[in-house]
Each structure stands twice: as C-alpha cells, then as structure tokens.
C-alpha cells in the first residue's frame, strides 16, 4: 500500500523567494525518503536531497537540520512486506469459506446418489412388503431380470464412482453448469418414475410382479444412459481442441500457447493453471528489481516546481477541479518534454551492466562446473561383492552427499547469488538433491541442470508454490464458454497471468496423388569453352 502525504507549504526564511517543501513518503519496500530542496540566496545547504527518518517528522526552522539528520535506507532483516501480510490473512479467511461449500456439495451428491441407487431396490421390495398375498409369484424370466438389475446396478455404481467421486482438484468460483444440469435431470427423472410408480402401482396394488421388475430394469437402463450423457458432456466434449489460448505472465512476459477444447472460462482457467505449474519457469521477484530501480531513476530525474503559484493542496469539488486537473496536465506534459530533450545515457549503463553481468555469470558457472565434476570423482559406487568384503568405510547416499557437499558448496552458493536464485534452494534441499543424484547414478551435469536454469514451479519446495489461491478476473461470466477474443486474468498475490483466446480456424484439406514413378530428373549444364 502506498501512502502519499503532502504538507502545506512552509516559508523557510523571511526575505527569500517562496519555496516549496514537499515531504513524500512511501511504505513499499520500507524505504523512506524525505526530499527537501530549498531555493535560497545565501544558504549553503543548497539543493542536495537529504533523507530523514520517521514519517511524521516536521521540518523544523533550525538552520542546522541538514547536518543533524540521519539517512535510513534499505530493509531490515526481519521485514514483512505488505504483500506477505495480505497473503496470510487471505489464506486464513478463505480456507474456512471454501471448505463449507465443498462439504455442502459433497453431502448433496451423496444424498442424491443414495436416492438414485435405492430407488430400483425400493421398487422391487415395496410390493413384497405392502401386498405380498396378492402378488404373482416370480417366474424364470422375472428372476433372470433380478440378475440383470443387480449387475446393471453394480456397473452403474462403479461408473459413478469412477466419474464423480474423484478427489476434487480445485475449487471453482461458480458451480459447473453441466454438473448442475445433470443433477437436475437425474432428479426430475427419478421423481417422475416415483410419481408413476406411486400412482399406477402402489395405489392400484398391481399384481403383475414381472411388470414391476421390468419397470425397475428400465429405470436402471435409463440411469446408465444418463451416465453416458454425463461422460460425453463432462469429459469428451472438451477433448477436441477448438481454441488456442496465449498465456502471458505479467511480471516478466513469459508466454506460452495451449490448445483447449470447448470449455467454460473457469474450467479453461483451471486447465491453464495446471499447465502453468509444469511449463512456466518459477517466478523470481529478484530479477525484476533492476528494471524497477531504472524506472525509479527516470522518475527521480525531474521535479516540477510551482514558483509564484497557488499549489492545489486538496482536490476541489465541482468546477474548481478543472483548474487542478489542467495544472496537473500541463505539469506532466512539461515533464515529458523535458525528459525527451534531456540526453539520457541510461541505455549505455544498461548495456555495459548487462555485459558485465553476463561475463560474471559465465565465470562463476565455469568454476561451479569444475568444482562439481571434481567432487563427483571422489565418490564411487561399491559393487555387491566388495560390500561384503570391506564393511568399513561404507556410506549410504545421504552420508556420501554430505561428504562431498562442502567441496562444491562455495562455488554453488556464489553462482546462485549471482543469478539471484539463492532463495529458491536451501542447503537441505541441495543435499537431498545430491543424494538423489548419487543414488540414481546421475552425472555431475545432470545434478547441475536444476541449478543452472530456472525450472518450472513444481520443481521447487512446497513453500515455493506460493500461490494456491488464484482469482479469476473476467468481463464475461465465468460459466460462459470460451469464445474467439475472450480475455481474462488469473491473479495471484505476486503476479497475474493474462489469457487471450483465439479460435482455431477451420482447416480445409485436399489431397494430391503423386505417382512414385513420376520422380525424374535431368542434368542442366551450361559450359563455356574457349576457342
């Protein structure tokens, strides 16, 4: 959260020009700066910006305040940024709400399942309970139908368990429309069967038991067909790719393309997130600090002063606002014009800085590779026969990893620091990875690959899968289907993913037959002879 505070202008010394004193403080990144510049004829504290501590400190009229202030820059060791706090509170409050909804839908599904399964059995059992004397005895065909009902119910049970009772992989913002429709359909269906049964069979106490059994069998058949409809709607329909979506990460512009079928926006978002964890390299905020500092330098280069003018301290209501807006407009235009005229050499610095960084990274990488290769030569796998002969100095993989780790630790740490990856890998995780590589006979290069290039988010430890809470921001309803030109955002705490979709065009393919004997060639010469 940024906090801009501005105080009313104070006049420094009598007899001098009216000056502007601006106290600007931000709480992002815990850097607090107070920039005060004065225009005075005979003062020696001319123009250099001075940083002072404390946001609520008023500038005193003391002449020596320039010498007695201290500079506070940088962050403390145990700082917690606003983002962390927001994230923790969100995690706490949202976990409760989500569980309620999940349990509600689960109980509803279980109740409906029980209702559906017990209905055919009830149809079969109720006549025996209510009018056993009037009932015709069950012949061979009827008993054959019992077996059929039993097996169909078993198949239906297995199919429903396979399709619906899987561990839920995500909590979507709205109910999946197809599931709701199917539930309603099944409910209507079962209710209508019960109505018919109640009116035509229970009330009239039908004696034809075979008819009742056939009725129950028809119910189970229809339920199996509804299950087939469920498979087609929920699983098969989105398999055929229909849209090509482009996913861009907002912080560093990583872009990937995926093919999706006809899905609602929320289900498409879920599919994209599952791909995100596998395909996108892990989000590293440390790599973005360079561009942020450059942007800050651009802004800090120019300041607009309003000399001999009325500074709009508070935004006026109504028509007076236009004056303030006009003033701000002209100020920004003046800033842009001045920035364009100024001969900026920041591109030069960027170029040399990047070249230097590249060189440093390559040097550290070379040292690291050599150190790791050397470390791996100290370890040798013991064969079975040798194990029995010399049980003295035998180590298991973990101990072996701990033994050779110190020789490469320094080079690895320096490399990770240079590439700003040191917060992704803890020493424990590195040793674990080393033991894993030793166990599986991997080469030093295989061990190093996971450190040389930033891998997908899944590769890192659990606390690095920072965002499990995503927000879907969309202009269209999230249960509406993907269309050509749909744009939506998937926001998590640190960054957001911008998703745009395009329809895959209709492809018209024609064929052309080539006779294998038609491949013939001639020699084309152009010689020149001198006579």
């Amino acid at each position, binding site marked *: 959260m940024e906090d801009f505070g501005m105080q009313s202008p104070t006049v420094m010394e009598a007899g001098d020009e009216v000056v502007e004193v601006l106290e600007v403080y931000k709480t992002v990144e815990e850097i607090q700066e107070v920039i005060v510049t004065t225009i005075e004829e005979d003062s020696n504290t001319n123009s250099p910006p001075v940083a002072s501590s404390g946001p609520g400190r008023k500038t005193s009229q003391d002449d020596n305040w320039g010498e007695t202030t201290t500079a506070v820059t940088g962050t403390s060791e145990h700082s917690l940024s606003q983002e962390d706090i927001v994230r923790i509170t969100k995690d706490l409050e949202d976990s409760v709400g989500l569980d309620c909804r999940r349990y509600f839908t689960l109980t509803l599904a279980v109740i409906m399942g029980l209702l559906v399964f017990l209905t055919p059995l009830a149809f079969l059992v109720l006549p025996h309970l209510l009018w056993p004397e009037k009932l015709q005895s069950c012949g061979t065909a009827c008993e054959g139908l019992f077996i059929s009902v039993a097996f169909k119910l078993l198949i239906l049970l297995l199919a429903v368990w396979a399709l619906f009772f899987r561990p839920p992989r995500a909590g979507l913002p709205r109910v999946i429309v197809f599931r709701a429709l199917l539930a309603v359909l099944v409910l209507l269906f079962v209710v209508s069967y019960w109505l018919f049964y109640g009116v035509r069979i229970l009330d009239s106490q039908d004696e034809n038991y075979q008819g009742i059994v056939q009725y129950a069998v028809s119910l189970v058949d229809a339920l199996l067909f509804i299950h087939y409809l469920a498979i087609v709607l929920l699983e098969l329909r989105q398999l055929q790719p229909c849209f090509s979506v482009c996913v861009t990460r907002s912080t560093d512009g990583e872009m990937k393309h995926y093919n999706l079928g006809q899905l609602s926006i929320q289900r498409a978002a879920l599919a994209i997130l599952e791909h995100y964890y596998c395909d996108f390299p892990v989000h590293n905020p440390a790599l973005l600090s360079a561009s942020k500092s450059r942007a800050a330098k651009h802004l800090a280069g120019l300041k607009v002063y309003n000399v001999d003018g009325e500074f709009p301290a508070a935004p006026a209501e109504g028509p007076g606002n236009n004056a303030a807006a006009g003033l701000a407009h002209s100020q920004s235009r003046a800033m842009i014009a001045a920035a364009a005229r100024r001969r900026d050499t920041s591109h030069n610095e960027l170029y040399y800085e990047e070249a230097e960084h590249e060189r440093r990274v390559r040097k550290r990488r070379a040292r690291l590779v050599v150190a790791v290769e050397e470390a791996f030569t100290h370890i040798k796998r013991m064969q079975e026969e040798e194990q029995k002969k010399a049980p003295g100095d035998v180590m298991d993989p973990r101990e072996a990893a701990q033994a050779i780790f110190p020789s490469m630790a320094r080079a690895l740490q320096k490399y990770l620091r240079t590439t700003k990856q040191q917060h992704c890998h803890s020493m424990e995780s590195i040793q674990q990875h080393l033991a894993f590589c030793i166990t599986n006979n991997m080469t030093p290069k295989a061990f190093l690959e996971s450190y040389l290039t930033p891998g997908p988010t899944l590769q890192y430890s659990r606390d690095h899968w920072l965002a499990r809470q995503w927000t879907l921001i969309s202009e269209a309803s999230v249960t509406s289907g993907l269309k050509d030109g749909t744009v939506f955002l998937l926001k998590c705490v640190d960054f957001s993913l911008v998703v745009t979709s395009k329809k895959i065009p209709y492809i018209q393919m024609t064929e052309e037959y080539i006779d294998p004997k038609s491949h013939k060639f001639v020699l*084309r*010469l*152009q*010689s*020149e*002879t*001198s*006579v």
Partner: protein
Amino acid sequence: MEHPKASMSYIPGQPVTAVVQRIQIQKLRQDNNLILGFSIGGGIDQDPGQNPFSGDKTDKGIYVTRITPSGPAQDAGLRMGDKIMQVNGWDMTMVTHDQARKRLTKKSEDVVRLLVTRRSLEEAVKQSMCPKP
C-alpha cells in the same frame, strides 16, 4: 522485317530470319595451337535458361560469352553477346556445344568466316528504314 525478338529464337516450322554481320577471323598461332580469342556457350544440349545474353530464354544457339582483349576475334569485330549463326557455311543454330567447338577449332582451317547477329543490328536496320522526323 521479322519481329526482332522472334528472329533471334527459333519458332518451329518457320524459317529463321536475322540481320547478320559477316566477320572474318584469322586464327592466331600460339604454342602449336590455333586460337581465335573468344569463348562460346550454349548448344542444344545445354540449359538455355542460364544464358545471360539471349533475349528469349529458350534460345539454344551458340553465343559468344567472353572475348580476349586485343585478340583476333576482337580485332575482327566480334563482340560479347553475339549469337553465331554460321561458321564457314555450317549452321550453328541447332548444334550441340561440342559440335560447335569442333567446327570452330578445325586444325586444317586458319580462317573462319562467321555470320553473327546481335540485337543492336536489328535496331540499327529498323532505324535506318524508318528515319525519325
């Protein structure tokens, strides 16, 4: 007067007509060889599309591709890009490259009389026939 472009190429069934220039080259003796001082390219067994001098890229005639400076050919008035129509009475519009070479380098002859054509000849005749006002 035939169409200038058509006269340089061969239309099947039609007689070939062209404005030609007679050139007589005296062969020069050089280390037991008789040389004429130019190079030829083209022929019915060659690829006409790669000929830089022909107007019509299906023309398979024999063209002069290089002239030795101050050699017998240049002195006689042969120019680069000329199409050779006849050599000593032998036709050169429908011959293979090797046949052309043989006809030009006969050791028994020390003079060759060529009939050559070039586009500038056609232009010159046309201009002289229809003088500009």
